[in-house]
C-alpha cells in the first residue's frame, strides 16, 4: 500500500513537471497563469463535490473572498506574503462558520445549494454597493463596482521589492497547483478522505458507524474554500485588479460546468475542464460571431448527454485501451460471478 502511494506521488510529480514545462510551448504563459488559477478553483469544488458530495453553488464566493482579501491586505501591509496566507485563511474561516450553520442545521442537499448560491449573491450585491470613501478596510477602499486596482502584486517572501509576475508568476502558480494537487491526493488517501467518500456514498450509514458527519463535512467544506481562496489570490495578482464579478453567479456556474465536463469524482478532471473551457472562452472572446456563454451551455449539454462521466475518465479509458487492458478490471468482473456460483 505504502509503495503504491509513493509510486502515485512520483507519477503525479513527473507528469506535473512535464506539463508545467511543456504547456508554455503551446500557450502563452500569461493565459496559462489564468487557466491555472481557474484550475485550482475547479479542483476546490471537485474536492468537496466530487469526493465529499457537497454541491456548493457559490464556490465563487470563496474565490472572490480570497482575491479581495489578497488585495485589501496587500494595500494595508504593502507586501504580499501575509496577504497570501490571509487569502487562504479568511475564506476557510468564513466557510467553517457557514458550513457549521448548514451542516449542523441538517440542511438537505438542495437547500445547501440554494444557501451557498444566495450567500454569493449577497456578497456580490454588497461588494457592488461599496463605492465611495465610506467603505474602507484600513487603508483600502472597496471601490464598489469598479473594484480595487493598484494593490501590491505577489512578491518574494520578505522582499517586497522583488515582484513575481509574467513568466515567473506562471511557474510559481503552476508549482502551487501541483503542490495543492499532491495535498489533495494525500488527503483523499488519508482516513479523513476515505471517510469523506463514504459520506458521499451514504451519509446515514457513516453516521451509524459512529462518525460525526456534520463536523467532517464542515471541515471538508472549509478545505475547499481555502483552496478556492488561494486560487483567488493568484487570480488577483495576475489581473492586478479585483472586481465584484468574481462573486458573480456566472462565475459560480462556470466552476460547476468545469467539474462536470472535466469529470466529477476525479482530481485531474476539474482542472482539465477548467483549462479547456476557460481557454475556449478566451479564444471565443476574440470574435463576435457567437456568444461564448451559448457555446459553454452547448458543451455542457453535449457532455451530459454523451459523456456524462466527463473528459478525464474517458481519457483514462482511452489510455488503458491503447496500452492494453489491465488486470484490475477483469478481476473485478469475475469475482462476484464466482461467488454467486458458490451459492
Amino acid at each position, binding site marked *: 500500500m505504502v509503495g503504491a502511494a509513493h509510486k502515485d506521488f512520483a507519477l503525479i510529480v513527473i507528469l506535473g513537471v512535464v506539463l508545467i514545462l511543456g504547456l508554455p510551448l503551446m500557450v502563452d504563459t500569461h493565459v496559462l497563469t489564468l487557466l491555472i488559477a481557474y484550475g485550482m478553483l475547479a479542483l476546490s469544488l471537485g474536492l468537496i463535490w466530487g469526493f465529499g458530495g457537497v454541491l456548493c453553488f457559490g464556490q465563487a464566493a470563496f474565490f472572490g473572498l480570497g482575491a479581495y482579501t489578497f488585495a485589501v491586505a496587500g494595500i494595508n501591509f504593502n507586501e504580499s506574503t501575509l496577504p497570501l496566507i490571509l487569502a487562504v485563511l479568511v475564506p476557510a474561516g468564513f466557510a467553517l462558520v457557514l458550513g457549521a450553520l448548514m451542516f449542523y442545521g441538517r440542511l438537505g442537499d438542495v437547500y445547501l445549494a440554494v444557501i451557498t448560491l444566495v450567500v454569493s449573491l449577497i456578497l456580490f450585491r454588497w461588494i457592488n454597493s461599496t463605492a465611495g470613501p465610506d467603505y474602507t478596510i484600513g487603508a483600502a477602499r472597496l471601490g464598489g463596482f469598479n473594484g480595487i486596482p493598484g494593490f501590491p502584486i505577489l512578491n518574494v517572501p520578505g522582499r517586497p521589492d522583488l515582484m513575481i509576475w509574467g513568466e515567473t508568476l506562471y511557474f510559481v502558480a503552476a508549482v502551487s497547483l501541483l503542490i495543492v494537487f499532491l495535498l489533495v491526493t494525500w488527503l483523499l488517501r488519508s482516513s479523513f478522505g476515505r471517510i469523506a467518500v463514504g459520506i458521499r456514498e451514504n451519509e446515514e450509514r457513516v*453516521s451509524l458507524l459512529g462518525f460525526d458527519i456534520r463536523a467532517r463535512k464542515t471541515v471538508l467544506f472549509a478545505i475547499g474554500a481555502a483552496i478556492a481562496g488561494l486560487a483567488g489570490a493568484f487570480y488577483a495578482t495576475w489581473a492586478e485588479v479585483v472586481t465584484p464579478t468574481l462573486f458573480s453567479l456566472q462565475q459560480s456556474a462556470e466552476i460547476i460546468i468545469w467539474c462536470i465536463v472535466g469529470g466529477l469524482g476525479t482530481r485531474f478532471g476539474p482542472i482539465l475542464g477548467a483549462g479547456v473551457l476557460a481557454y475556449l472562452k478566451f479564444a471565443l472572446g476574440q470574435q463576435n460571431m457567437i456568444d461564448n456563454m451559448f457555446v459553454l451551455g452547448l458543451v455542457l449539454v453535449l457532455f451530459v448527454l454523451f459523456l456524462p462521466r466527463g473528459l478525464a475518465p474517458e481519457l483514462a479509458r482511452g489510455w488503458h485501451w491503447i496500452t492494453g487492458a489491465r488486470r484490475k478490471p477483469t478481476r473485478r468482473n469475475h469475482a462476484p460471478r464466482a461467488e454467486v456460483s458458490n451459492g
Partner: protein
Amino acid sequence: MAETVLETEGLTMRFGGVVAVDNVSLKLKARELRCLIGPNGAGKSTCFKCLCGLLTPTEGRVFLRGEETTGWEPHQIASLGVGIKMQVSSVMDGLSVHENIWMAARRFNDTDAARRKADEVIERLALGAITRAELGRLAHGERQRVELGIVLAADPWLVLLDEPAAGMTGEEVERMGDVIREMTSTAAVVIVEHDMQFIRSLASTVTVFHRGRVLMEDHVDRVMADPVVRDVYLGKQA
C-alpha cells in the same frame, strides 16, 4: 448476574395524533438475544429508531450501559460501541467490500489495525472472493452479509438489527443465524424481525408489539403457542 446493557423507561413516540410507540419499557442483559416482533405498524421499527438515535422519543428515556442516551445523535450512540443495521440495506454502494468494512473498523482502530480487522471480518464471513468488488454490483444477500460485516468490524457490545433476514434465501438465512448466534458470545443482540421461522431457529426471548404497546414477553415457543399472539398476527381483534 449480568449487567443491564439496554433499558428503556416509558418510551413513547407520537407522530401528530398517532402513537407509534406507547409506554414501552424494555430491559436487556449483556449477551442476551432479543427479538422484537409484531404485525405491520406495531411500532417495532419506530422503537428501534428511538434506540439508535434516528428518532428522538416524545417521552421516556433510553439507557445504554447505565448512561442516559435519550436524544443523542446516531453517531454518538454508535461511538459507544453499538452496531446498527437498518431495515433497508444501507451500505456505501460506490465503494468496495473491503473499504466498507474498513471504514466501520476505522472508528475504533487506527488505519492499519482497521485494515487487519477488515481482513479478519472478511475471512470470517467468507467474503474473500468479493473483497474488491463494488457494493453496488452485488446481489442482495451478499450486500446483507457485507452489512453484517460492517456491524461486526466495530466489535460492538450491543447489536441492533432491523430485519436482517428480509429477502434472503433459505441458506443465507441459516448462515445469518449462525453469525448472529456467534455475535451473542460478545454482544447483546436486538432483532426486529417478521420471519417467524427464523426467530424460532434463534430460540430467543421475544417481545411482541401490538399497536405500539408490548403485548407479551416470553420465550419464543410459549409466545408462538399463545392464542392472543396468534390472533394479533392473523389480524383479529386482540
